[in-house]
């Protein structure tokens, strides 16, 4: 005699992303906070010291935000036109920013008026930054020139005129105080050593360079331009290590996480992708409402701030770690009671009576076991099952159909229950996993409740919704079939080139598989 076999719930492997440690980590952020800025956000920079304020450059202002503040705690607005690239110094005391009029200004974080102003660029300055010795500032702009400034004397030390187009990005090395790089729209990235009169290295990216980044070790260089993110080995003389093409629009910004294990890239295609720096595979991706212009990650990855073209600043904070031990602590019996009798070893003359293992059945299984079809269906239409595990609901419907009692289980329901059923069916019927059985269910429901159509506005609305959902799906399938037809003609012309009698069957086979995959 066999035991009752519970309903088999078909588990379909989830397509798309798998749950990895990365997905868990990067999903651990709260719902974003949106802050409206005056214009497109072109730069976000975190202060390297606690409490990790961040400077946001948008339009003609630089706003400094505190970690959880939604209002700027400080504003620098001494710009006539747009400000660019407000960047913190390593100690977090100074901020430098370029501007549309060509001047570079240096601010004290606590002050309001600029401490220094460096004039020399003839066109807007899009890139400024501190070298790692803290006393020099590099800059580059639309006049194709890259310059180096001395802070105490506010004079230009050296100027390089090597780029042949606008320079829009740059980065200073963290390990060597004399090295900085700039990327330009002339498709090159140039590496400068302040001790040398000319650039020491030129890397051909291939597209206008939008963003460059040096790894903390200084050995690797990342450049973004066009749809590509390219990683170069500086120590090998600028050899291309890997070229990533995961965005379908221009990549605008790059960023490393605090551990240096993950590389983030933001793009005009509204996505931020996260790569592992060991395998250079995409491990996670975020998408945003509009094109991403700038991106920054706070130390310890506590906050992700993304600036967009429409001037919205999107701030995500990490959820606090849940301490499970505290909540899950239950009063347990004393150790002595707990182990009582468990350590007893049976002697040879003892009779051992083993307790049968009790199989706990789910509620719907218990009801199905006693052939209570209607109640079983009610049990799986409870909100937690219906919403979170629709496959269980569908499996029970299938089992009822198999037993031939689906019709009687669906019959005799009141307005509220029909509403519930129809909502479920209309929502899930387009899911290919559930389509076959839910079509039957929808069929039976319409069959049973046809006479009462028109008596209840709620039910009528649901029927219309169902009709719309199915109509939409049919249109979609038709479109897919059209595409398939086009592909078939393409395959046919493709195979004609290599004339063998076998290819016919092969193409059929291929067509067949694509069709099934599309149907599914």
């Amino acid at each position, binding site marked *: *005699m066999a035991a009752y076999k519970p309903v088999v719930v078909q588990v379909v492997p989830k397509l798309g992303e798998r749950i990895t440690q990365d997905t868990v980590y990067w999903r651990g952020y709260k719902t974003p906070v949106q802050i409206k800025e005056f214009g497109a956000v072109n730069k976000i920079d975190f202060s390297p010291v606690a409490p990790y304020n961040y400077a946001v450059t948008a339009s003609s202002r630089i706003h400094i935000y505190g970690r959880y503040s939604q209002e700027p705690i400080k504003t620098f607005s001494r710009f006539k036109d747009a400000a660019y690239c407000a960047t913190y110094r390593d100690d977090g005391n100074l901020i430098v920013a370029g501007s549309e009029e060509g001047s570079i200004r240096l601010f004290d974080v606590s002050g309001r008026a600029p401490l220094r102003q460096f004039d020399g660029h003839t066109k807007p300055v899009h890139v400024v930054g501190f070298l790692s010795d803290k006393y020099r500032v590099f800059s580059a702009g639309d006049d194709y020139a890259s310059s180096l400034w001395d802070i105490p004397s506010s004079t230009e030390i050296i100027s390089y005129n090597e780029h042949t187009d606008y320079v829009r990005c740059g980065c200073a090395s963290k390990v060597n105080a004399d090295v900085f790089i700039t990327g330009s729209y002339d498709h090159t990235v140039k590496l400068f050593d302040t001790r040398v009169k000319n650039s020491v290295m030129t890397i051909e990216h291939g597209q206008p360079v939008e963003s460059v980044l040096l790894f903390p070790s200084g050995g690797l260089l990342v450049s973004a331009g066009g749809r590509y993110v390219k990683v170069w080995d500086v120590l090998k003389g600028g050899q291309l290590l890997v070229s990533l093409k995961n965005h379908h629009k221009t990549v605008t910004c790059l960023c490393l996480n605090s551990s240096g294990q993950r590389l983030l890239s933001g793009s005009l295609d509204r996505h931020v992708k996260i790569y592992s720096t060991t395998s250079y595979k995409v491990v996670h991706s975020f998408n945003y409402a509009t094109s991403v212009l700038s991106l920054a990650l706070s130390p310890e990855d506590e906050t992700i701030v993304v600036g967009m073209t429409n001037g919205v600043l999107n701030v995500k904070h990490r959820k606090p770690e849940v301490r499970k031990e505290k909540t899950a602590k239950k009063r347990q019996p004393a150790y002595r009671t707990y182990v009582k009798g468990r350590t007893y070893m049976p002697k040879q003359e003892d009779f051992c009576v083993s307790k049968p293992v009790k199989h706990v059945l789910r509620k719907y299984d218990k009801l199905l076991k006693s052939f209570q079809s209607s109640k079983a269906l009610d049990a799986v239409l409870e909100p937690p099952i219906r919403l979170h595990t629709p496959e269980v609901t569908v499996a029970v419907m299938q089992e009822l159909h198999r037993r031939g009692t689906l019709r009687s289980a669906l019959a005799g329901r009141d307005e509220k229950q029909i509403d519930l059923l129809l909502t479920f069916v209309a929502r899930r019927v387009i899911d290919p996993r559930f389509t076959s059985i839910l079509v039957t269910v929808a069929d039976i429901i319409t069959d049973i409740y046809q006479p009462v159509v028109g008596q209840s506005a709620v039910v009528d609305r649901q029927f219309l919704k169902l009709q719309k959902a199915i109509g939409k799906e049919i249109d979609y399938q038709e479109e897919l079939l059209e595409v398939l037809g086009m592909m078939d003609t393409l395959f046919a012309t493709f195979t004609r080139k290599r004339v063998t009698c076998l290819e016919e069957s092969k193409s059929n086979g291929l067509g067949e598989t694509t069709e099934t995959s599309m149907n599914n």
Partner: protein
Amino acid sequence: MVAPAALRVVRCGGGGRGHLGTSAVFSSDSKYLLCASGDFVKVYSVATEETLRLMGGHADQVTGIQLNPHNHMQLYSSSLDGSIKLWDFMDGIAIKTFTVGSKLLALYAPPDFEDSVFVVIPKSADRAPFQLVSVKLTKAAGQDVEAKELSVVLSGVDASPKCIAFGREGKYVASVKQFELCVYFFKKKLAQRFSLRSSKANGGSNCFTCVTCHPREDCIATGHADGKIRIWRNFHHRKDYTYSTLHWHHDIVKDLAYSVEGTYLLSGGIEAVLVVWPSESDCQRDFLPRLGSPIEHISMSADGSQCCTLHTDNRITIISSNLRFSKSIQGLIKSANIKTGLVVDPRTKALVLNGEPGHLQFYCLQTDQQLFSLDIVQREYVHQAGLHQTDLVKVAFGAQGKWLATVEEREDATNPELQLKLWFYNEKTQSFKLNTRINTPHEDHITDMCFREMDELEDDALILVTTGKDRVFKVWLMVEDTDPEAQQRVSWSCDFVGSYHNYQATNCCFSEDGSLLAVSFEEAVTVWDSVTWDLKCTFCRPPGKIKNICFGRLTCSKYLIGATDYGFLCCWNLLSCALEWSAHLNISVLQPDPLSEYIAAVSWLPRESSLFVFKPNEAQPVYIQRNLCQQKIQLAAFVPRDEPEMVSSEKYLWLRRSQLFFLTETQELMTLSTKSLEERLTPASKQLAVEESLPVTPFSLLLGKHRRHPSQEDTDLGNGVVQNKHKQESPAVRELLHTPAHVLPSASFLCSMFINSLLISKENKSAKEVADEVEMESEQAEDDSDEEGDETEMEQDDPSPMESLGELPCKLSKAQERELRKIRKMDYSWIAAF
């Protein structure tokens, strides 16, 4: 083997009629269960579930068996051949045969009638209506006696044996037919008739199906086709009778039985649930659900400790009195429709086919027992008529039984639900574990499935091919999962989809070396390269669609055989791509022998099946057996023998490596053999009955302990070898115990040999014994002298008893010597007691 080797068709299991003719009978001590099975009466041991005896003698189906109420060691059996036989079932001897003349449809032997039994016979020859007559069994001497003293008790009764029951102390007999219950009182010679108004409430009519009488009270229980049970009381009076209704069953009540004291009533039906109705209405009814298949008969043992149910699939379930499932006697389970074909499990050499619904049964041919039943569908089976349930349709084994592929489908009005499952054999648990499940592998029914079987190549060369009515064949390949976090290392996925001119793919077959795949598409056979999946060539022989294809093996591997439904058997040469020969034969089954180049083909002409065995390289068959059986042969399988059999004649050379089994439409399993079934029944099982009746003595306790030993050893080792041979434990011991004392040599001589036979063989030496070795060594010196004497003595003695004992080892190994020494130190003082 010396016997004139005429090949006979021998039935060896299963059977359409099976046990279903009549209910089973417990012997009075409840140790044996007697059961009618086709033309035979079978005796089962309740304790071991084994078939102890097969009593044959009737020329037609046995329709009733009853214990002789005046001698509980005897059994009456009635048969359609018109005779009643009296058996001594302990010895399996037919004591007497009473010839009645007309067909006997049921037999009753109530205890209160001196030397007469009741049978149901047709009124006029062979036709309804039927009548219940009492037969006076004369005490005349002689084996065959004519029993002509018939007296009609009731006429117009139903033919089913369940429709008549005898009341307490033989006072009355109750019979039901259609809508009428008739009670005949023997004393008053009066028949009371009670009829029901026929009604057809929700699908079922309320006509009677079965009847039983309370053993202590005047009370009759009747079962009805609409699932109701009626309890009739006070039926002595024409008018004042009463009945109460019990209703649980939703379909026909198949059988009813009262417990010995009448305290409760058992009922069973198509739901496969045994329902217990207590007599006192205040008690709750009890259920034993999920017995596997619809209940056909219920019977109680005389002491009330057990009851048994007979099921429609030929299974017997023994249920203890506290309503616990205790044992199940099952041979070849009869399933509604064998769709999987006969497949041989390469690991256990068991026949594999549909068993219980949704299960795969592994049937051991040697012991006529089911080895195990693998649940494939894993869904609750609802026993209800008219439901489309998921069932198993295709089975294939791959890689020497390591992989099992199954296809299950559920027939639906709109689209069939298909699942392809791949199972991996787990050595540790000794069972198949589900590896991959593929939903909807084809859009339509799967017609055939085969593995590419390769001997030396590693696992990843394993390929599965399925052909479907959706006009494609698909190739499934094992892929390794590179993700280290994945639960299983390998899974299966589709590799190639092939089709040919939009024809339905019907059969597929791999050549012996696995390099070629033949797929038949309606009228054409296509041959594909199994590496590149290129179409190599096509064969066609119109008219008629291809029904079966197979490749030749060994020396004939260049041939491809195909059978068409137009009645042609064709053989193509793969080297010349031409038709080698063809024959006009209406082939129903085509089965190649996996171990030789012979191919068996069974043809079907109306009312006659014939067997042809041929080699593909010759158009002339090697062996022809006309008129194999009356029924259509549905399936056939070659089962490899454990060791090649000696074959006397050139003609039967094809039977050397494997044995051919057939399954007929009524699911009778047959084979071709030179031996009859009685010979094939192992002598060990016959001995069993004797051994069980032996009283318990210290000696038998010792033997019993020893006999259990090897089996324990086997389970302990658990080294993945399935024991399929029926082991005869220590034949020497048995020989010794069953030889008359006066022909045995002296006890002193036998003693050493007897002890030898008790020794455990060398390979079972455990670590513990090795440890013992050390302490033994000190004693070795003193033992040495005695031992030498013993050995020489043994060698000097005449070798004749040694030969008769057969399997004793002539020389002792070291381990055995050590054992011997150990045993010698044991206390044998109890021998002195004899």
